[in-house]
């Protein structure tokens, strides 16, 4: 299968840009923000302020290029590695950080923000996006659901069931697989004997497209088209974003145990942010000062979110009981009383 590319690694256009320069600047800024968060979170984990953290460095274009195709009313259903997409769609940094500190309140998106808490189990959440889009349709809305998952997740049975349901019911679902080459220590080539992830769409009677996941413009274009199809009632699409996890799986992982450093170095040189920078620069729409400026601003926003998250008192012994049901059962009330007293 062919891989769509619009922006060559050196930043030159090989096709028509689907976005204006202003729009590209906006998305460039979002990628920079994502990276600011990513670096901050990695650093915090090293200081023991976060539980494990899963970096998405190198996958910023795959996430921002796709999520940018959504309207506010649409849904994002992603994983532990999709913070940039979630944030772009309205999930505040403070929530993301809270979650990573180990606080359930991170999962409480603000009202009106249609972003599910990140899925930690691999593979089970794509069918949720199918259900969400389906409910929107039955409730008379044209909102669509975009779901993010990795190459590893395609091995789970639930991936298959989600794809099959979406195909059969033509639900407004956009499946975005970030094929980042690895599932912890397992290379994609050992995850499946299929040559591409995109071709798996054939098994479900839906279109599958393969796209350079480090190319913001190509990501945007295929996502825009998939969203438009879904919104028009023409059914789901599988997008395979070919990208790479340049960092470790999580902060507890040591990639040197299973892969060659050169591979990662090679992919670092295909950095999606650098590619857009080169494009904007060639267009005269970039200068170092501007980037330094937005970087500082976005970094500060993350810092503020960190402060806010860390200022929040952890749950007391009683509060952990408060959200199991709308009303606690008698058993839970009894247990809560014991817990406070115990």
């Amino acid at each position, binding site marked *: 299968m062919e891989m769509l590319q619009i922006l060559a690694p050196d930043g030159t256009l090989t096709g028509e840009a689907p976005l204006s320069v202003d729009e590209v600047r906006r998305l460039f800024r979002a990628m920079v923000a994502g990276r600011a968060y990513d670096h901050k979170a990695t650093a915090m984990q090293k200081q023991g302020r976060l539980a494990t953290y899963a970096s998405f460095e190198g996958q910023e274009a795959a996430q921002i290029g796709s999520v940018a195709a959504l309207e506010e009313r649409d849904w994002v259903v992603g994983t532990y590695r999709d913070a940039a997409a979630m944030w772009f769609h309205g999930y505040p940094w403070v929530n993301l950080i809270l979650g990573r500190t180990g606080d359930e309140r991170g999962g409480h998106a603000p009202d009106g923000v249609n972003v599910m808490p990140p899925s930690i189990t691999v593979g089970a959440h794509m069918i949720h996006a199918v259900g969400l889009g389906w409910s929107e349709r039955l409730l008379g809305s044209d909102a669509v659901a975009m779901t993010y998952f990795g190459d590893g997740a395609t091995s789970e049975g639930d991936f298959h069931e989600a794809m099959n349901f979406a195909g059969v019911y033509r639900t407004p679902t956009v499946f975005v697989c970030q094929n980042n080459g690895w599932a912890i220590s397992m290379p994609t080539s050992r995850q499946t004997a299929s040559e591409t992830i995109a071709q798996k769409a054939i098994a479900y009677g839906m279109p599958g497209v393969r796209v350079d996941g480090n190319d913001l413009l190509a990501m945007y274009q295929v996502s825009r088209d998939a969203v438009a199809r879904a919104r028009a009632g023409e059914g789901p699409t599988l997008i395979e974003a070919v990208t790479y996890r340049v960092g470790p799986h999580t902060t507890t992982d040591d990639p040197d145990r299973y892969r060659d450093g050169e591979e990662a170095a090679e992919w670092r040189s295909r950095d999606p942010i650098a590619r857009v920078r080169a494009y904007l620069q060639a267009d005269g729409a970039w200068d170092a000062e501007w980037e330094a400026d937005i970087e500082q601003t976005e970094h500060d926003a993350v810092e503020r979110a960190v402060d806010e998250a860390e200022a929040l008192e952890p749950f007391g012994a009683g509060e952990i009981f408060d959200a199991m049901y709308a009303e606690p*059962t008698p*058993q839970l009330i009894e247990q809560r009383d014991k817990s406070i007293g115990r």
Partner: protein
Amino acid sequence: MSEVTLAAAINAGLSEALDADERVVLIGEDIGTTGGVFRVTDGLQQRFGAERVIDAPVAESGIVGAAFGMAVGGLIPVVEIQFMGFTYPAYDQLISHVSRIRNRSRHRFTAPLVVRVPYGAGIGAAEHHSESMEAAFAHVPGLKVVVPSTPYDAKGLLRSAIADPDPVVFLEPIRLYRSVKEELPPEPFTVPLGAAEVARPGTDVTLIAYGAMMKEVRAAAHVLAERGVDAEVIDLRSLVPLDSDAIIGSVIRTGRAVVVHEAHRTAGFGAEITAQIQEKALYSLLAPVERVTGWDIVVPLRRAEKHYVPTVDNIVAAAERTMRS
């Protein structure tokens, strides 16, 4: 008014719910054109359309997972899994997602869905068609587990389950689908979740059961009465939330208890009930609480099934054992 079966009562409850609230949808295998393997959804697709009464591919995890997404999105899905033995592929969706979304989003997202599950042995069905694994659901925080034993309760509990803001596993005793009948009031009604019912008041011994075993337990109380033992019969109706007060109150009065279920003995729900009784009523106990249960074996097939399912005699004998102390 004529009498209706438990299956018909559920059908009526579903029909009313579909009528009352546009957000209610049904999804399951073969529930549409055929009305389900037990015909519980008979006529509903014809009446409410294939968009609301949805025939699904053979994929239980997908069905529950999709229904979860629908519920988060604002619908009220009522899932049918054909037999309890086919819920296991959906166990992960139920535990990891359905039961947790309220907690992990601190009330922002909720999953007000109902999973209807025919359960239990006694009809000589094929392998995997006679399961009673309610304990595996009752142990999962965030789920409610409801088990009717009469047409009235089935309809009333179902309406409550559908109205409940949290996910409910609704267990339907296969053996009682057509073997119990009663008249139902013409107007809609509900039965609250979490409230046991004293099916028969008594003073000598408390028989505690639910769902599929209620018929045997009621019959056992009858036999015991003839033998001069006045048994109180409690139909739990909900396992989660559990009406512990009803159980403890009764046992404190009678001093004796027999807990009955068809499920395997080890780590069955009867252990929980027994544990609670000894925790809260130990000093009232005149005899050990007896458990009458299915064995720790795969439910035998048709030719030997009868050796598995607790009988009226087993229950009577257990009650009499408690009377001897």
